[in-house]
């Protein structure tokens, strides 16, 4: 008997007739009882709590804020996903943006002064940004190797709770949930409010 059949047979013998499916009481909160404004404010607080730097700006200030954040870090060369909105880096002088097409070598990523990405969504209660490899996010390595990550979050991408996030995310995409700066690397979050 193959190991597969053997294990499945043992499982079925162990359980007998099973006694029917177990109902799951789902009486926990799905959404936060907060206004839009408060959800965005809570996200900012929780990100700051996680030791990441956070800044709130209006849509028209995005370009200058980003340039200021990169200059403050004295960044010379940064990595960016190929489909980063070109406007985001419009105000940059003296910072070279290396586009990840063709895929940048890990050594180049390690040498760079950081990476700029967007995100798929963000979770207020946990101060989390979630990347799924979609628009303005690039492949997983981009945020794993460079020493600094600047993540742009639009206010309408912020959900209140984990259940809201799980319902919105696509399980078939490669997801990375980031809550606070990884060991030895920096994280800045730029919240763009409209």
């Amino acid at each position, binding site marked *: 008997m193959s190991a597969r059949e053997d294990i499945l047979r043992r499982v079925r013998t*162990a359980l007998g007739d099973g006694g029917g499916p177990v109902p799951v009481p789902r009486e926990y909160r799905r959404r936060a009882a907060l206004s839009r404004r408060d959800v965005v404010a809570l996200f900012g607080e929780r990100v700051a709590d996680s030791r990441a730097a956070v800044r709130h700006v209006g849509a028209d200030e995005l370009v200058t804020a980003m340039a200021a954040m990169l200059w403050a870090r004295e960044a010379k060369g940064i990595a960016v996903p190929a489909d980063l909105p070109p406007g985001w880096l419009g105000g940059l002088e003296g910072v070279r943006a290396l586009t990840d097409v063709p895929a940048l070598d*890990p050594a180049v990523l390690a040498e760079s002064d950081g990476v700029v990405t967007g995100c798929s969504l963000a979770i207020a209660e946990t101060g989390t940004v979630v990347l799924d490899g979609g628009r303005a996010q690039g492949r997983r390595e981009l945020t794993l190797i460079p020493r600094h990550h600047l993540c742009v979050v639009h206010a309408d991408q912020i959900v209140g709770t984990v259940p809201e996030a799980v319902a919105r995310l696509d399980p078939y995409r490669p997801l990375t949930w980031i809550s606070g700066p990884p060991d030895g690397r920096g994280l800045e979050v730029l919240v763009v409010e409209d």
Partner: protein
Amino acid sequence: MRFADAARPELADPSSRRTRRQAATRARARQAEATAGLPDWERLREAGAAIRDRTLRDLGAHLEALEASVTEEGGRVHWARDAAEARRIISRLLPGDTEAGLVRSDVTDEIGLEGGNAGPHTRAAVVGARFLVAETGTLVVTDPGESLTFPGTVVVVAGIEDTVPTWSDLEVLLQLLPRSEAGRRMHPAVSTRTGDLQLVLLDNGRTRALADETGRAALRCIHCSACRDVCPVYERTGARPYGPGRAGPIGAVLTPQLGGVEASLGASLPFASTLCGACADVCPVKIDIPGLLVHLRGEVVESRRRRPVPTPELLLMRGLAWSMGDERRYEQTLVRRARWAGLLARDGRIRRLPGLLGKWTDARDLPVPPRQSFRAWWRRRP
């Protein structure tokens, strides 16, 4: 080796006991704060317990669903009856010259895998799983997911019970796990990957535990370590006396269930607890660990009933049953007990009982029984 024997050297080391106590105090405070931060924590625990029960109650169907979705997404599922079979499968998947890293987990420890850390330049890796979603074939890990970017083979080793039925179950488990494990609102990183996995599903005693209708609840465990952080026994002994398996209260329950109660470690672990219940209070999936320990103590006693030489406890209990079965014998026993107790007592306490009974007084004093029994006093009352 028996738990108590293995614990002795640990107990005699005050500096590591102090370190453990400080670490435990910090961990308890963090967990308490993190769980108090969610108004629906108790409702999440209810849901978490039910999700895990639902997984176990119909595990065969969920495993087949998991296999189908992993295969559909381009991966493959391998089945291992025990640790040796799992290691054989892994070495077949990663031939000797493969430069493979290891992302450790309880399951990779369980099958005895050792190896270098998986760094950014590793080409292949063996990783543990936090959850495997049967519905979608998704692997969930709680690290930045470096291992999931390797160009070579990614081998995932998981226990058959690490499955969860649906994607939406993660909305509960990803709230329970980080708060219980590290007192955080969320793990610093969570990564998922669907498809293209070489998944090794391990039994290694789990179907044996599953067959025990009461004991099966221990397989709800989501490996958070909250029970360990609150346990007064673990705080004093550390991990080593629990043997090669899991440490702390959940280890005291799982090790005997996976490996049986015949070996000396498995037979002693159900007794490595004061049954104070702190573990059950914090368990995010509401495993009644003290209840399971009592259940296992019963199994240990049952397994010894068949021995040719009875245990001291059994002899004592049989003696008690004999003397208590008859009024005259019982009266005589009471008189004799008072006489012996008088001989052994110093300052109102018995510090050491003779012979095999001495084991009982190793760790505690026995109060001296009153000179006169209640029945004698009743008869002589004016």
